[in-house]
C-alpha cells in the first residue's frame, strides 16, 4: 500500500530548489534509511514527508528541538500538546497530570532515563538529550516514525538499542542517518541522496558497505568534507 508518492516534484525552501524533479514513493510498513552527505537534501525530503503525513507520523527533529529550561517530563509531554486544551496544558506546567506522568515515566525507563523526569534538559548530556527527543516522538504514539538523524549524538552500541526500540514501536520508519552498518542491518530499503538527486534506491539486502561508501565523493574530498563539517559544528556550538 503506497504511503505517499512524489511524482516529478521540485522540493526546496521558497524559491530555492534543493531536490529538483523528485520521483519517489514510500510504502506503509517499510523501514527506510536515508543516506547522504550533509546538504544532500535529506532534511528537505524529511520535512516535506512530515508536512504531507501531518499528525499521522511521529517526528524526531535534527538537533532535538528540546526546550532547555523545561524538565524531561515537560519536554516529552510536548509530543501530545495538541491533544489537550490550553488550560489543561497550563496546569500541567504547574502540576504534572497523573496519567501523563505514569506513561512518560514508563517510556523514559525504557530509554534509560529513569530518575531524570524532573531534571531540566539543559543539565543533561548530549546522549541523554537525544533519548529525550526520541521519548517525545514515542509519546506521540503514531504508526510511522520520521527521524532526522535521531541517532547522531549517541555511541554505536546505544544507537543499535535505540533503533531497535524505534522499530519495535513503529511499523513504518523513515530515518536519516550516517551509520552505514545499521542502515544495512536494520532497514528494508536504502535511499541515497547526493547533491539533490536520488542516486541509490534499493533493498538493503542487495547492498554492501562499499556501495554505500560510494555515495560519498572520493576519499580525499571526503576527508575535506568531514573537516568542514566539524568546523560547522564548532560554529554552531559557539554561537550564543
Amino acid at each position, binding site marked *: 500500500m503506497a504511503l505517499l508518492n512524489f511524482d516529478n516534484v521540485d522540493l526546496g525552501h521558497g524559491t530555492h530548489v534543493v531536490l529538483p524533479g523528485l520521483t519517489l514513493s514510500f510504502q506503509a510498513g517499510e523501514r527506510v534509511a536515508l543516506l547522504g552527505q550533509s546538504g544532500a537534501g535529506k532534511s528537505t525530503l524529511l520535512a516535506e514527508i512530515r508536512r504531507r503525513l*501531518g*499528525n499521522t507520523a511521529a*517526528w524526531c*527533529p535534527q*538537533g*532535538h*528541538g*528540546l*526546550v*532547555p*529550561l*523545561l524538565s524531561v517530563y*515537560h519536554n516529552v*509531554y*510536548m*509530543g*501530545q*500538546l*495538541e491533544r*489537550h*486544551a*490550553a488550560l489543561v*496544558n*497550563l496546569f500541567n*506546567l504547574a502540576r504534572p497530570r497523573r496519567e501523563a506522568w505514569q506513561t512518560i515515566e514508563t517510556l523514559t525507563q525504557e530509554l534509560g532515563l529513569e530518575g531524570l523526569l524532573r531534571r531540566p534538559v539543559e543539565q543533561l548530556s548530549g546522549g541523554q538529550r537525544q533519548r529525550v527527543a526520541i521519548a*517525545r516522538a514515542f509519546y*506521540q504514539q503514531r504508526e510511522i516514525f520520521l527521524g532526522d538523524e535521531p541517532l547522531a549524538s549517541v555511541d554505536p552500541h546505544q544507537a543499535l538499542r535505540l533503533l531497535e526500540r524505534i522499530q519495535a514501536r513503529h511499523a513504518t520508519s523513515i530515518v536519516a542517518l550516517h551509520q552505514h552498518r545499521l542502515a544495512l542491518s536494520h532497514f528494508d530499503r536504502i535511499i541515497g541522496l547526493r547533491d539533490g538527486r536520488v542516486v541509490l534506491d534499493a533493498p538493503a539486502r542487495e547492498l554492501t558497505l562499499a556501495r554505500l561508501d560510494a555515495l560519498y565523493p572520493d576519499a580525499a574530498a571526503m576527508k575535506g568534507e568531514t573537516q568542514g563539517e566539524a568546523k560547522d559544528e564548532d560554529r554552531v556550538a559557539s554561537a*550564543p
Partner: protein
Amino acid sequence: MNAAPGLLRGNSPGLTLARRSLALILLCLLLLPFADLRIIAVDPWGELWRMLHGFVWPDFLGLENPLRAIALTISVALWGTFIGAILGFPLALLFHHSRLVRGFCAFVRAIHELFWALLFIQVFGLSAVTALSALAIPYAGIFAKVYAEILELTPRAPTDALPDGVDRLSRFLYAELPQVWERLASYTRYRFECAMRASVLLGFVGLPTLGFYLESAFREGRFGEAGALLWVFYALIATLQWWGHRRLLPILLIGALFWLGPWPEVDGDLLWRFVSQDLWPAPLLHGDLAGMGSWLAGLPDLLPAIGNTLLLALMGTAGSLVLALLLWPLASRHFGRPWQRVGGRLMLVVLRSTPELMLAFIFLLMLGPSMLPAWLALALHNGAVIAFLVARHADGLKTGMTDLPASGRYAYELLPRLYPNLLALICYRAEVIMRETALLGMLGVATLGFYIDSSFQYLMFDQAFFLLLVTAVLNIGIDALSRRFRPREVPLDDPCSR
C-alpha cells in the same frame, strides 16, 4: 611600492566606526562655545571638601526615621516595576504587529519618570498612586519594547518540532516562553535597579522617599546626613541580590503593600476636568484657531531651550564615550593589580548607582547653575554604566599575545574587539541621555525640562503638557537617529545594556 594610507583612510568597519566617533566628538567640540559652562559658585573646592567630609564621616544618628523612607523607596520601586511588567508584557506580544502600540510605547517611554510624576501630582497629590504611575507607565513602554526584542530572538527549533494543531497559548507556554524566561527575568531585575534610582528621585518632587531627605539635607548643608543617606542607598543597591532574591519576591511584594501610601481620594470630576480641559490650550477646546496663534506666542522661547537640550545631549553622549574609553580598563581583569581593580570597580559601581540627577545636584551645589554640572553628571554616570558593561565584555575575551605592554593590549588586542559593542551601547544610551537632559532642567539648567517644571509650578498645565509633547517628539527623533548610526554588526545579546 605603495605609500601607507593616510590618517583614518580605508573602508574597514573599524575605521568607519572610528570616523563616526571622531565626528561626534568634533561636533561636540565645535558647539561647545555655545554652552554655558561658567563656574558661578564662590568657593567650589570648599563646598566639595565639606561634601566629601560628610560622605567620609556620615552622620547616621542624625537621620530621622530612615527606615520609613527606605521601605517606601523599595515599595515604590517594587510595585512600579511589577505593574510596569504586567502592563508591558501584553504590549510586547502586540509590539511587532501594531504600529499604534509601537508609537504608544515610544511616547510613554520618551517622557521621564519625574515628568510623569509632576503630571500625576496635579491629580493624585503626593500619594502612592502618583509614585506608582510615574514608574509603571514609562516602564510599561520600555518593557514592551525590550520584551518584544527578546521574544523575537526565541530559537525556532522547539516550535518547529511540535505536532500540528497545537493552540497558540500552549505553544507559547511550552516552546517559546521557557527559552527566553531567563533573559526576561534578568532584564526585569535590571529595570528594578533602575526603579530604585527613580524611586529615590521621586523625593525631588516631594514624595517622601530617600531622595526627599537627601535633597533637603544637601540643600540645607547637612552633609553628614546626606552622606549617611547615600551610604544607605549604596548598601541597598549592593545587597540587592540577597534581599531581592527571586524566592523572597512574593513576600516583599506583599510586605511592600503595607508601606505604600497615602492613598488619595480621587475626585472623578476633577480628574475628568484635568484630562479633558486643563491639559489642552483653551483656544483649541473652543475651536478658536486665531486664538491658538496668540496662545503659541505666549509660550516661552522654545528654540534656545530645544537648542540647549540637544546640545547637552550631544555633550553628554560625547563625554560618556570619552569617559567610557578611559574608565573601562579600571574594572577589567586585563589591567592592573587585583587591589587596583577592586578600587576601580567600586568607583564604577558608585558612579553608576548614583542617580544622575543626584550627581548633577551635587555638582550644582559645587559649581553653581550652569550646564557644566549637568554635563559632568551625565558623562560620569553614563560613562561609568558603559565602562562597566565593556569591562565585563572584555573579561570574557582571551588575549592572544600575553606579553604585550598594557598600552598594546588596550589598543591592539582588546579595543578593536570591544569598540563596536561600546559604540552600540553609546547609541542605545543616547536616548537615555536625551531623556535625562530634559530632566536636569528641573535643577535650573535652561533645557526644556526647566520650562516644563516652571509651567507646572505656575499651574499652566496646557503649556506643560505641550512642552512634554515636544520633549517626547525630540526624544523619539533622537532614538531614530541613534538607531540609524548604531553599528549593526554587533548583536547586543545582553538586554541589560539598554
